[in-house]
């Protein structure tokens, strides 16, 4: 069975690229448009992984990760975040909030797929 992945990003073009990359690799993808949407979807769905942007309206990625990790059912779900070179403090804050790993934008779709495979394990 393919893994279910929730992608959270306010940018429709990034959402589209991630969706194309992940569905192309055989994953099922659900999309959320901001932190609040992501939190709701994550809590009511059952995802094997969450890939999220950090800088978003209506609850940013860091707040969303914190909220998720406070929810028992979301413990252990790998959360990858997308970030840019320029905000290194965001990276450490997201890590502290409970994120699993990150990918630096801009990224190639292959990089994302590789990372997702790696974090999901065998």
């Amino acid at each position, binding site marked *: 069975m393919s893994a279910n992945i929730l992608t959270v990003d306010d940018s429709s073009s990034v959402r589209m690229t991630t969706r194309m990359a992940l569905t192309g690799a055989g994953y099922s993808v659900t999309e959320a448009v901001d932190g609040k949407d992501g939190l709701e979807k994550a809590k009511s*769905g059952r995802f094997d992984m969450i890939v999220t942007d950090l800088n978003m309206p209506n609850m940013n990625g860091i707040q969303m990760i914190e909220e998720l990790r406070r929810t028992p059912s979301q413990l252990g779900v790998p959360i990858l975040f997308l970030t840019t070179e320029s905000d290194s403090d965001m990276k450490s804050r997201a890590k502290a909030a409970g994120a699993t790993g990150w990918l630096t934008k*801009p990224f190639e779709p292959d990089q994302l797929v590789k990372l997702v495979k790696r974090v999901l*394990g065998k």
Partner: protein
Amino acid sequence: MTMPDPVEVFRTEAAELLEQIEQGLLDLEHQLDDASLIDAVFRGLHTLKGSGAMFGFDALASFTHHCETAFDRVRKGMAPATPELVHAVLAARDHMRSLVEQPDQEDDETGQRLLTQLQQAVADGGGAPEETAESAPEANSGAPAEAETVSAAPAAEPVTWRIRMTLPENAMANGTNPLALLDELRDLGDCEISVDTGNVPPLYRIEPSELHLSWNVRLTTDKPRDDIEDVFIFVMDDMELSIEQEEPGGAPAQATPAEPQSADPEPIAAAEPAAVAEPAPQASAQSPAQAPAEASAPAVNAPVQETRQKRAAENVRVPAERLDELMDRVGELVIAKSRLSQIAGNSIDVQLRSVSEDVERLASELRDTMMVLRMVPVATLFGRFRRLIHDLGRETSKQIELVTEGEATEVDKTVIERLADPLVHLVRNSVDHGLELPGDRAAAGKGEAGRVTLSARQSGGEVIISIKDDGRGIDRDRVRAKAEASGLVSPGQQLTDQEVMQLIFAPGFSTANAITNLSGRGVGMDVVKKTVEALRGTIDIESTLGKGSEISLRIPLTLAIIDGLLVRVGSGRYVIPLSAVEECLELSSEDDVRSEGRSFISLRNSLVPFLRLRELLSTGTEPDPYQKIVVVSTGVERVGLVVDQIIGDHQTVIKSMSKLHNDVATFSGATILGDGSVALILDVGHLVAAGQQQEAQLRKAG
């Protein structure tokens, strides 16, 4: 259906982001200390940069990066938000837009100039902005490096490493799967892995989601040390990791791995499988009470997921041309429906009639739904005027306040698009010719800031968009003098007030003494009038000298399909837009003969001129014994149209006439009737004007 091109998706998104940034900045200008606005603008820039880089808009990404860096100083409170800053970022935004639209035509000089301007605007703490500008390219070029270093090193002699790894207690809760890490190590070469349970607490103190194990790994690989470290890239900062190269003798270089193992000899067999052997730690991390709930979860879950996906699909982005295609189809369906009803109407087949009625109802509902789909709120149109006003204010040194009303009013998308340019022109005109300089305003006893009000409201089948200013108003004498000087009217010619004002829409007319930067760009008010008329709209002007002017555009809500009244004149059939029809009367042959030559009917104590379409269209036929008068109006003026027969209402799909018929003013278009024949659509505005002219001539004649 084909997948849309991601680059196109990005362009659309970039346009929205730029719009958002602009609106945010314009709001910020009025509330300079609003942190949430600053955040919103910053976020817009950030997303634009990130997505731009993803889709190969490198010039955009790098330029936006610099802007973001500069703006970040404001966000962090290191520099204040000022009107200058807003202006600088607005200018930068415009540059970003051109970088989105024409990424190949990068204008480096403009970019540099704008950045310098922006950096000056945030340069509060001295020197700092320069530093940010320099660090930026570094950061950018650093991005791809991360991905490439991994396998860059050449293959070397196999080396044996002793690795000891202790992950933080919350590592598994945070999604790190230790087994995946160990698997990755295995992939690097030969591995001997042993687990160290020494730190596992007694059973009663165990938190199921915590990790207390350490691993010792003996790895023989020809891969470089970097590859080993890379396995731990996400946890490196929080974990204890030692990677030591084993001496050829076989003994570890240091004794460290052995120590903790014996530190706590208490064996807790139960803890080990709980924390490690489970491949899905999140599932085991719960209390037993939760287990049944989870077991039933998949069944419950499926529909939940489905409804969520449905909700996500509620908003669908559709390219405009697809809507247009659909509109065409609906138009054709409406025509086919008319044919069907005609056939059914002549048939005695009850079933056919009932199907035809159903189709008729469905087609008309479909048409209505389609109309709504094409409607967009005028807010999208008004939104862009905030920026225009901002720019105009700076250019003219006038203080301008923009008020918008009725932004929720919805109008056909095409109408909005076509109205944009005329409205820009009218607003420019209001600011340029209407509003006075602050000094003059004060002298005239007005507030220093001039006010331009854009409003929209729906009235019947029309939307009325008005541009109002509280400036100096239109000077009729000057308009008249100017018109006489340019030969538009002859001296002494009698003109009504409205006629004088309409002169400003005449080609080649301009009252401005000097051609300013704003107006006089070659696009005259006559173009505005033409555009509005092409939309089957009309323009009214009201103006009070010294108080201000209001120009109202009355535009039909939609362009493609109208409800029409089908009439017959002679043997030809014509359509009168139903929205213009006020009432229908009978014109008996007696009345007809009696009114011959005068062509007026008395309608509730007012005289309404009428036109005999039979004469106007030179049908050369005898009138029907009972002719009808259809009274049509343009809101202010009205006129009766004498027809032979009123056939009934008819949903009319408007087909525009060919360019050859450009000079034909009496008709605004054509439509295809149910039997396939063509009916011309009468241009009410033109006919009313003709009727009024006839009235004026008759009055003159006495």
